[in-house]
């Protein structure tokens, strides 16, 4: 504000000034800030304070404002930018994020353009855009209000509108969650005539309409993310929005359209930032094309033409973006799960997820492995022309939260219809018991085979998930016991505890503690309750009785021993194919029709528990059918079954491979990296791009079962991709694999860390 004072007509002027306007906007933001404080606590305070202080200070230094209490604020615009930057950050960000964001917003967002009034883009959004691209993981880590549990934003987590959105009692950025607070701020701004209703109404209205047309919940679309906050406080930024009424309306509509487009088709959970920044770039054009008709003139043909062009530009831009995005939709990608980006961080809501291979399948999950909060996995099923790869996110109980088709090779316009949300959204919220084609899920006319394949594949994966995380379901488990009474004992606190387990109809009918020398009074409860619990659960894996843990445990162990005796001797049992093979995964090779068939055979307890075809060169249509029939048959019979007619060569190849695997079993295929290591978790370190990374490698039975990246300092966008590809590969092959192009340093760091973990040989 070092402008020269001059006296010219008019000699009276409005009392309003730029600092006054900025202060009013600041006041309007206070309800949102308060809402953030209520829901997210102290972080909402210090994040916004840090961002604001940084913005004010950076601008004051660059603009050489006097560093006095009042002078430091200059025209007040840095105050508003700083608060805005803070309010659009998640409440979990580390302390340096608001500082970097504000500094970027003020410098590259505003000052480089020549300061206030000259910037093309909304400074606060520039700050957020850079943060989003550079530090993706912390920028999309949202937590629930009050208890700060990591969770996805309502846009991903919710399926429909909820009144919690109005109060703001949901996860989200600090100032963006409370609709009430935003509307209070909006009312104040409208009352003070600082915003034109056309922008927020056009924005929210268009988003509502587009969401409705595309079958999304329109109320959720408008209230569920940062849309409303942006419509009121960001899109209305005077400097970066059009000056003419018609232009403002179009600007708002364009923002709304783009936001929904970007949310739907990009990997970012929220489209607001890039929607508004894109429209910011169009402002000069909109200004030019929407010049109002002056007094005493009629709307000229040129003006009508210009307005039409302006409307067309906004629509074309939106559809242009859609077209570009469509190009990158997996339809065009070769049908392989490799190289496809998995939106793990976005859908799991955190980058702190674990990766583990269970039953030879890679799962990404949050929470404990015994009680996962969310689990993500990639599944596949044979479609019309080839395999369909899909990506599933389940909640802890196995309900589908998210599903998307990663790749498929079915026909555009027919089989490819399975990528439509209208089809996929039917899966959301269902679990394994609810997946019946044309009952729970409507197939797609013209894509019957493809859509059924997806349903079948998902159902399979849900079953595998249950098995992987919770073991076999209760009924099936007990079916394996032979009726009768079994005795067993285990050592307790005072001596051996002897139990009798009675099996009726394959289930535990009764558990009786026959003898024990446990302390009377203390162990009574355990002796009384544990048998009941075990009988009820049909499993010794029950909660122990507190205060009598040792006795409880002894009872459970004794029951387990008894049950071991009651184990059904499966057909083939000790005489089976793998009867004398130690536990492990074995690889074998056999000649198919076009080349080798390679299989991995998993052996546990002398039985083949899983068969996986790793590689084959046969015609999918024939081979796939053969494999899907033969594999279950082999596992069931525990012997080599007859080849399947119509695919004799493929069948024979498979059988030969299985045989080779089991017979050559002297060398477990897992004799690779961790072949001679005792079970345990090993920690290792390596150097990535941004610094040291730490991994935990879980070894069991001489095989690497899981690799978890405990810590890394690399750019999330690149590193994440490298990790999600490399880790399953290492686990599958049990050997080092090639580094991933594009993230060479992160890959090498990971490999190095795994190596040091295994060679250090220090189990934790």
């Amino acid at each position: 504000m070092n402008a020269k004072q001059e006296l010219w007509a008019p000699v009276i002027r409005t009392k309003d000034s730029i600092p006054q306007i900025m202060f009013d906007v600041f006041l309007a933001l206070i309800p949102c800030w308060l809402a953030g404080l209520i829901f997210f606590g102290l972080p909402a305070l210090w994040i916004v304070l840090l961002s604001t202080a940084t913005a004010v200070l950076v601008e004051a230094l660059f603009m050489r404002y006097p560093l006095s209490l009042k002078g430091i604020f200059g025209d007040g615009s840095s105050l508003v930018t700083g608060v805005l930057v803070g309010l659009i950050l998640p409440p979990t960000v580390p302390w340096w994020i608001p500082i970097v964001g504000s500094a970027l917003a003020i410098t590259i967002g505003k000052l480089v353009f020549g300061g206030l009034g000259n910037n093309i883009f909304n400074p606060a959004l520039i700050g957020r855009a850079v943060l989003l691209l550079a530090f993706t993981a912390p920028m999309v880590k949202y937590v629930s209000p009050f208890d700060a549990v990591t969770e996805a934003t309502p846009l991903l987590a919710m399926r429909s509108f909820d009144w919690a959105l109005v109060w703001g009692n949901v996860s989200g950025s600090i100032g963006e969650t409370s609709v009430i607070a935003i509307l209070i701020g909006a009312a104040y701004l409208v009352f003070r005539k600082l915003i034109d209703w056309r922008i927020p109404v056009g924005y929210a209205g268009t988003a509502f309409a587009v969401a409705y047309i595309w079958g999304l919940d329109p109320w959720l679309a408008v209230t569920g993310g940062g849309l409303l906050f942006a419509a009121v406080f960001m899109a209305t930024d005077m400097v970066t929005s059009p000056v003419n009424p018609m232009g403002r309306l179009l600007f708002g509509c364009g923002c709304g359209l783009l936001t929904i487009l970007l949310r739907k088709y990009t990997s970012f959970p929220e489209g607001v930032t890039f929607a508004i920044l894109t429209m910011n770039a169009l402002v000069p054009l909109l200004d030019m094309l929407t010049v109002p008709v002056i007094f005493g003139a009629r709307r000229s043909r040129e003006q009508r033409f210009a307005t039409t062009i302006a409307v067309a530009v906004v629509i074309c831009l939106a559809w242009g973006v859609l077209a570009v995005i469509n190009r990158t939709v997996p339809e065009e990608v070769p049908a392989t799960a490799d190289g496809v980006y998995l939106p793990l961080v976005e859908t799991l809501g955190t980058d702190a997820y674990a990766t583990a291979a269970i039953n030879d399948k890679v799962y990404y999950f949050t929470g404990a492995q015994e009680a996962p909060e969310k689990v993500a996995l990639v599944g596949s099923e044979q479609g019309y022309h080839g395999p369909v790869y899909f990506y599933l996110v389940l909640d802890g109980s196995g309900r589908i939260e998210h599903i998307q088709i990663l790749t498929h090779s079915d026909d555009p316009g027919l089989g490819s219809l399975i990528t439509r949300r209208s089809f996929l959204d039917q899966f959301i919220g269902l679990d394994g018991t609810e997946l019946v084609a044309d009952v729970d899920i409507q197939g797609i006319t013209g894509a019957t085979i493809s859509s059924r394949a997806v349903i079948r594949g998902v159902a399979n994966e849900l079953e595998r998930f249950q098995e992987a995380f919770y073991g076999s379901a209760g009924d099936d488990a007990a079916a394996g016991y032979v009726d009768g009474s079994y005795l067993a004992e285990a050592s307790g606190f005072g001596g051996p505890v002897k139990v009798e387990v009675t099996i009726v109809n394959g289930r535990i009918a009764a558990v009786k503690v026959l003898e024990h020398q446990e302390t009377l009074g203390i162990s009574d409860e355990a002796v009384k309750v544990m048998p009941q619990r075990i009988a009820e659960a049909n499993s010794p894996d029950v909660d122990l009785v507190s205060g009598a843990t040792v006795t409880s445990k002894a009872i459970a162990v004794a029951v387990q021993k008894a049950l071991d005796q009651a184990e059904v001797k499966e057909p083939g049992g000790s005489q089976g194919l793998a009867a004398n093979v130690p536990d492990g995964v074995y690889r074998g090779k056999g000649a198919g029709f076009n080349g080798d068939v390679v299989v991995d055979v998993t052996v546990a307890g002398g039985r083949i528990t899983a068969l996986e075809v790793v590689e084959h060169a046969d015609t999918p249509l024939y081979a796939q059918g053969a494999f899907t029939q033969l594999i279950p048959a082999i596992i069931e019979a525990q012997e080599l079954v007859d080849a399947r007619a119509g695919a004799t060569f493929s069948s024979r190849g498979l059988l030969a491979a299985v045989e080779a695997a089991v017979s050559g079993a002297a060398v477990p295929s897992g004799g690779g990296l961790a072949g001679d290591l005792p079970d345990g978790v090993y920690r290792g370190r390596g150097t990535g791009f941004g610094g040291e990374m730490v991994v935990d490698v879980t070894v069991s039975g001489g095989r690497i079962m899981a690799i978890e990246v405990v810590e890394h300092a690399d750019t999330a966008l690149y590193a994440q991709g490298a990790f999600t590809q490399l880790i399953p590969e290492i686990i599958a092959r049990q050997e080092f694999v090639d580094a991933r192009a594009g993230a060479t340093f992160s890959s090498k760091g990971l490999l190095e860390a795994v190596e040091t973990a295994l060679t250090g040989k220090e189990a934790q």
Partner: protein
Amino acid sequence: MGNKTFPRGGGHIPHRKDATKNKPVMAMPAPQQAVIPLSQHAGAPCRPVVKVGGRVKLGQKIGEAEQYVSAPVHASVSGEVVEITERPLLDGTKSMCVIIENDGLDEAEPLVAQDYSRLSVSQIAELIREAGVVGLGGAGFPTHVKVEPPKPVDTVLINGAECEPYLTCDHRLMLEQPHKLIEGLKILMQAVGARQGIIGVEVNKPEVIRVLEQACAEQSYVRVAGLKVKYPQGAEKQLIKAILGREVPSGGLPADVGCIVQNVQTAVAVTDAVVHGVGLYQRVITVAGAAVYDPRNVLVRIGTPIRDVIDFCGGMGNPAAIIAGGPMTGQLVQDLTAPVVKPLSGILVLSKDEISYELNQPCIRCARCIDHCPMGLQPNFLADWSNKGLYDQAERNHIMDCIECSLCSYVCPAKRGLCRSIQAGKQVVRAGKTAV
């Protein structure tokens, strides 16, 4: 009654009329020496028709208009012509003036009362021209040109809106001389052949509306229209739109939509000119502002130095600015010896608290100037193009349609001199046109 207004733009600005609106007009004694510029109007300057040393009577023509768009000037005192020389005007520029030493006798030409109902259109126009009547609202456009419009006119509007803050001279005239005003309106209607005459008054002057309605009660073709209080209600095109709903086309004249607009005091002057044959040698001006001790409306002779007028109103203390005209469209007085001229409606002696400076902070594109522009223009862009010399672009975007009401500058939170830049741009565009 009535709340007519123009539809787009406009805004509310402070009135600050209370100090003077209830005080009757007071006649000020003639000055010791009258300085009468030969150019007090829009159009060509006059040729002096008196010689140094010659005697003139009060109301005697001393400058003759030689072109159609021009008006003669008259002596405002009786006495001896002592000098014909260049003297500074209000804006500081110098102009040829006839300087008359007052003999204090006010010896006047005999008055000739006329019955105008028998006069032809051209006779009325000639009487108006002879009396040197020009637009007294501020523009100073010769009135006789206006009463001979190029197209048929059915309505004469009297602009009593007086939407500029501080100014109350029209207000007082309407209250004190309603019959003379209505007489003038009737003369103008006869001159242009109009069927109706309407006096537009902002509804914040209810007593004026009452008085005028009484005065024109028996006239079926003359009436009063109440106008909403909104700036610039008194701008010609906005007034026509508000009262008649007619929109003067871009670049056109009021006659294009069948009407002419005259200021209150001009209509009164027309009555004097046609009925009494008196030349225009005095007018009522408002002297107001917190820095003048006794703000009031004064009837003052043309040619009286500004300083004398202020002294007559008790003198001034600590003025921060002295403005000729209203605070929105007026100009800074550069020289206190400059004389009162015909289009001068007020002298404002403003204190520091009343004024606001131009700061030219960066435009934050708030678009208030666009929202408020009564002409639907984009003042921010027009000013920008003018400042950058992009006059073609400014002209394509109708810079010439700007009515220079200054509302854009008023509402600008960055206190940019928008209207001033646009005025400068208009001058260049206009000069470019005459050059071609």
